[in-house]
């Protein structure tokens, strides 16, 4: 809740303790909020750091031409054939999102079972904890051998990589309903399904978003690693990187990495935006 909002309520009758701002003051305040982004104090530190990094990068490109490509070259690779990057980005993005979607649905379903059935919880959770700290991307080459060069191994790997963090977070979230709340609703004999729907699932939402923040970047890693392991056979930014680096086209490699970084930031931003929309009641 923004405190500027409280003053705008229409004509509070007897409230000597409230200083109601005038329309001009409110307009000025709103203008200040809106123009915040244009003030140097806001963007200058970031831009300065960017400039320093770019300078360092150019120096690096001179000193170590086999590691860095000059920024100008990278930009021109992107500008020369933007369609190439767009196509490959869409491939990687769809692999990541489809895998994430499958992993999410499966993990959420299992989390519900785990939270409702004690036997399953005691069986599954220790395994889940171990697997969630295992770098599952390492099985990418095996998946390629087993499932071929198509979308299959990429989606499966992404789903696997996303599965366990979601499972652990959501299973914790579903059990995060405070005991007194449960007691209130048990005294009115709410069914397990009602408790799940009205209490457990909403209570788990902060945990769901926490897991999404972890898992969106992970899904990109899963998709790219799977592409790296099956390079040249299909599209995707991972293949682009693998093929270009084998041909020593450094500018293309870096261009693809920059696109991945931008894509990751975009996804993170989307999650944050959705979280703010859905979890307006949650202070975070």
């Amino acid at each position: 809740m923004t405190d500027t909002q409280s003053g705008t309520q229409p004509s509070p009758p007897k409230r000597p303790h409230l200083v109601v701002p005038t329309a001009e003051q409110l307009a000025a305040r709103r203008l200040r909020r809106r123009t915040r982004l244009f003030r140097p104090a806001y963007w200058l530190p970031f831009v300065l750091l960017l400039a320093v990094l770019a300078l360092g990068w150019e120096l690096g490109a001179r000193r170590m031409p086999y590691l860095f490509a000059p920024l100008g070259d990278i930009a021109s690779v992107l500008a020369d054939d933007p369609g190439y990057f767009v196509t490959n980005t869409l491939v990687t993005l769809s692999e990541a999102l489809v895998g994430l979607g499958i992993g999410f649905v499966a993990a959420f379903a299992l989390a519900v079972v785990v939270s409702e059935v004690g036997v399953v919880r005691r069986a599954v959770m220790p395994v889940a904890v171990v697997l969630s700290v295992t770098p599952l991307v390492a099985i990418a080459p095996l998946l390629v051998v087993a499932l071929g060069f198509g979308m299959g191994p990429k989606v499966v790997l992404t789903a696997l990589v996303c599965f366990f963090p979601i499972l652990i977070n959501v299973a914790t979230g579903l059990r995060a309903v405070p005991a007194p709340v449960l007691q209130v609703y048990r005294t009115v004999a709410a069914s397990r399904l009602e408790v799940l729907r009205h209490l457990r699932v909403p209570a788990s939402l902060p945990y769901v978003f926490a897991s999404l923040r972890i898992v969106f970047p992970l899904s990109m890693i899963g998709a790219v690693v799977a592409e790296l392991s099956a390079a040249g056979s299909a599209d995707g930014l991972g293949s682009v990187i693998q093929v270009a680096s084998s041909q020593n086209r450094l500018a293309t490699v870096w261009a693809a990495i920059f696109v991945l970084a931008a894509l990751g930031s975009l996804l993170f931003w989307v999650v944050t935006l959705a979280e703010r929309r859905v979890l307006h009641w949650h202070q975070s």
Partner: protein
Amino acid sequence: MHGVRRLYEQADFSELVALDDIELTIEPGTFVSIIGPSGCGKSTLLRLISGQEAADAGKITVCGLTPREAAEAKAFGFVPQSPALLPWLSVLGNVTLPHKVNRRGVNRRSDPGSPDLEAMLREVGLGESLHQLPAELSGGMKQRTAIVRAFGLRPDVLLLDEPFGALDEFTREALQEQLLELWEQTRATVVFVTHSISEAVRLSDKVVVMAPRPGRITDVIDIDLSRPRHQEIITSPEFHAYELALRESLRDAFSHGEVVS
């Protein structure tokens, strides 16, 4: 509607006798407080009455039903010590949700009339906060919401577990007043767990004194003060006499505990 009657029970927690040989009849429509030192099984008693735990021995009857059946029929309203509101629902949403669950239970009740929850909230001074979230409310307002949530069910039996324990003195007194007003309207049976002697005298028809280890009833004191009881009653000599009697009885309960342990 009959009283709550329970005989002899033990809720086992690694052989700890939480409640032993409890014999208690609560007349329908009366306000009964349960008071006693920590660990005397007050909360356990409430959980047994509302059917959330089963007695290891003995029998509890609520309005002629078992506690479980009474809960299924939505005979209970419960107010815990913390308000236990859902942070994602507005005040109105929090008060309405218990009506939405277990709809079969309402059909089994004799009077299906659904009370006007908004009016009840306005009555306790939450009219301007109907659509606010719990995070925007003060502690007293939250607890008021929790009380309306329980009363709004028009329960036969209202169970309150130290509902004002975490509030400051002023808020506590204001809420006691409102609780009594709501109760005068509904005349539900109230079982009120408290730590406060004056609160027990102020509110109740009957005060049950309990002692710990093992949890048991040591005394039952009838409070014969006329209703409605307003703020002024606290300073009356009768009120004082009851407070003293209760204090005496509690001292006994404490010393009993010491002897046993």
